[in-house]
């Protein structure tokens, strides 16, 4: 029997998107395990292909989004996540997970701060795929929609020019097509140099099905090559699908 790759989802107190994210990963073929942070050890990641930090409010995000999660993770497993990446592992951070990956310095320098609206924003946004060769985005079209739900999703860098640099270097893998939250260069998602660490504010796990879209008549803007049974997929599915294929082809 073919061995399915294993994904581990780290769960902090206040992480609350782990279930649907695990469901998304299972749908495309991963075996998943949710590990509460209290039980995390360096050896927890042995044999694991993907580590996912899902959305939520780790420790309430009262200090700064992702700050306490970073400190606890480092206290628990030190540099294990960096070693994991160096050894070919993949890391995905969604929303609060993106904030935590940024705090952990696993992504290009930047901070996710309060939206310019000073509000929580739950809405759908259009995204531009700027890294079609990314292991996370290969099956996604040039533009597509995902929902967002965050109060602190505005990506800022020390100097605005750094963010510009991210556009040029390809680190800014995903951008909003309009100004959503005040992010520099409208950046919605970042990847690291290896391409195996990816963080984004939008929630692909909330758009696995066509019916998850707000418009009942939405259909996938595919070029007609979608396989049978795929017509009811939402765009989020294809992010996880891309990831699964990258992980399996990398390990074979």
């Amino acid at each position, binding site marked *: 029997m073919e061995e399915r790759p294993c994904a581990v989802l780290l*769960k902090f*107190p*206040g992480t*609350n*998107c782990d*279930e*649907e994210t695990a*469901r*998304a990963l299972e749908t495309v073929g991963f075996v998943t395990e949710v590990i*509460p942070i*209290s*039980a995390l050890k360096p050896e927890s990641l042995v044999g694991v292909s993907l580590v996912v930090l899902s*959305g*939520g*409010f780790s*420790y*309430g995000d009262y200090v700064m989004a992702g700050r306490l999660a970073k400190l606890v993770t480092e206290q628990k497993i030190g540099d294990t996540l960096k070693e994991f990446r160096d050894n070919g592992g993949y890391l995905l951070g969604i929303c609060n997970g993106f904030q935590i990956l940024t705090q952990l310095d696993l992504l290009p320098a930047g901070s996710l701060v309060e939206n310019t609206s000073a*509000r*929580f*924003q*739950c*809405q*759908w946004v259009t995204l531009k795929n700027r890294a079609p060769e990314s292991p996370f985005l290969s099956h996604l079209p040039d533009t597509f929609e995902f*929902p967002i*739900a965050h109060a602190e999703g505005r990506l800022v860098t020390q100097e605005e020019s750094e963010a510009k640099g991210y556009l040029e270097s390809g680190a800014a893998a995903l951008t909003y097509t309009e100004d959503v939250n005040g992010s520099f260069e409208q950046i919605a998602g970042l990847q690291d140099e290896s391409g195996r660490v990816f963080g984004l504010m939008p*929630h692909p*796990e*909330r758009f*696995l099905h066509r*019916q*998850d879209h*707000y*418009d*009942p*008549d939405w259909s996938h803007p595919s070029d007609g090559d979608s396989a049978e049974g795929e017509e009811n997929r939402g765009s989020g599915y294809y992010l996880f699908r891309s990831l699964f294929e990258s992980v399996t082809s990398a390990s074979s």
Partner: protein
Amino acid sequence: MTTETESTPPAETILDSIAEAPADHYRVLKISDLDGEKLYELSQFMKLSLSQEDMLAIQEIYQEWDREPTDVELEVIAQTWSEHCKHRIFGANIEHEIDGEKETIQSLFKTYIYDVSHRIFDRKPGFVLSAFHDNAGFITLDENQAVCLKAETHNHPSAIEPYAGANTGLGGVIRDILGAGKGAKPIGSLDVFCFGAPDTEMDNIKADDVLHPLGIMRGVVRGVRDYGNRMGIPTISGAIQFDDSYIYNPLVYCGTAGVIPIKDIDKEVGAGMKVIAVGGRTGRDGLHGATFSSAALDTESHEEDQQAVQIGNPIEEKKAADFVLAARDEGLIEFITDCGAGGYSSAAGEMLEECGGTIDLDSVILKEPGMVSWEIFISESQERMVLAVKPESLPALRKLADLYETELIELGDADGSGILKVTHHGETVCQLDCSKLHNAPIREMKSQWTKKTEAVEPPLVENAGEDLRSLLSDFAIVSREPIIREYDHEVQGNTVLKPLAGASGDAPQDATVLRISGSDRLMSMGLSVLPEWGKTDPYAMGTACVDECFRQLVASGADPDRIAILDNFCMGNPDDQEELGALVETVKGIAVAAEAYGAPFVSGKDSFYNYFETEEGPVSIPVTILVSGMGIVEEASHVTGSSLRHDDSVFALIGHTQGHLGGSVFARQKGLEKAEVPSTDLETAMESYRKYYEAIQQGLILSAHDVSEGGLAVTLAEMAFSGKAGLEIDLCSVPADDEMSKAALLFGESPSRLVVEVAPENLEKLADLFEGLPFAALGRAAGEHRNLRIDWGKETLINEPIDELKSLWKNGLAQYY
């Protein structure tokens, strides 16, 4: 947060004069010699919210037992007998007079809620799995899973501290779900608010220290947002009413739905089990919440009662929730309930009322030192759950508590004695026969109601387009988008029909629909609140609220034979006969509609004393009922939204339009507050809903929108807000009363009506289905323009650009929030 007691030299209080303190942490109170007046004074002083009659009954119980109560015992009885916990007005004997006719009602709850629902249970075996006795009522979803819904109010705390009040209001009802059965998983929340208008002049607030409605609204919304979002429970459904009568007493309803494996619904406590608590620590926050909410507010409440408002910590609750659901899945829970009003005293009281057992207050981890026994036992500190478990399950439970980083304490034991015993510092501070606790005296009350409506001439409609614009800008109708977007309504990834949807993603929907993990079926959630109707005709409000909630659920694709509802009442002063009369009439209205629709009540709650002593006398809220409901949607393809989908479809109206304008937003705008309110033809409506469901099953319906606030014209405009096409409508064949006014046709709010969008080729099929029922073709979607055009025969009543209408509607609240 805490308010220190005044430091004036202590005169001897009633409490001092009768108290003996065997130890620092509790007192014995000699009540046997007190007369009624003194007893009442004691109740007042201790903030027990017990009447003189109640206090006399307690005195008699203790005389029988031949001893004096401890302060802990009196507090426990006060919690148990409080209106908040015992619903004594709904159990009272009421002599009711309606338009001069007298009748006696023995318990509103039994007569109109419980008995009605049980008749429906008998008609639909297997549908309702649990009702009225648990934290929430369950209905069958499929062969393995059940869903539940519970709604609560948190009015008094939200008036005083809006953020914390609403925060803990939602936190509390989420715990209700976690404590339903052996622990249900919360999957969606609703919130309904009643506030004064956002543009209320400060001069119109006739009391000190009352917060402006805008301040209340902002605080309340943020409170709900910060709890719901952090818990990861989508807030998917809601409503806001604005009316001057809510300036002093805002209403904040919070509700949560849950899902559970059917095998985990039944729970029982047995002798030998351990009682444990998990979650937050216990402090002085939230003392006397239950009794506080059973009394009226005044300016002093704002100064004195801050202690009664709890402080929320959603992450603490999230950890407890993770623990509870994991423990349930591992089969480690025998019984569970939440710590809500009354804290451990009511949680343990409920758990041990039959079995009996001992609670050891020394086991409780405190937030602050020096708390005395009664404070610990009745503290309403948040985020605590109480469980009964087998002793052998303890090690596994401790492991889970460590895993999810929540604190677990062994609170006591269940022993089969039938006695609730509480120990502290080695002494018994409370020893009560639980069965005695639940026999509060039955209240005798009087009520009366006379109809307040009168025949009024409908106003002439000279410029219907202007009237429509003015309605779409009315606070009653404007888009709630600024608030909806602050709530994460998509977390858990199951919100199929969102509160805002349609092709543009921002058009209003009737109900919201959730996918349920592990099932092909879905759950729809709807609600209705129509206080304006109740001001003049509470009976009509009752029937119309059930109808609207039911209709929303059906419109969204729910099976009309698998709908259950909840009744949540708020009112002012129940000792005012007229106000109580309005309540009685409302209850009758919801009961008759529930029975006609076969939609049983599975849970409910009430909140009294929502009145305020202002400089100009007491101001009461109108009797306000929230009817919320859940319906089973058989399959995903049945889910139906409320927004225009195609540019070549046709439109039809289901239901009869009456000439009455009462209760409508239009009538309010025109100053016709006394206009007669439409009635609900329940039998015809139910038949129509069944036919509509057949049409859904046959795939005939593209979209459907209920006709509600603002009437038919607003309904059509809202459907067109998807931006897909214009509309060309003719009202000439609308089934209606003879001699209809334009006003009633366009803006009347007769219940039981739905506008549906169908493909042109399906219109005849649909018309055939509705043979013999009120039904008419209305017009068509017009792809060639983007106007809403409404004709009445040869006359064009309305011809307005939809984007202009939409921008009025969309920006109405945005400027205030």
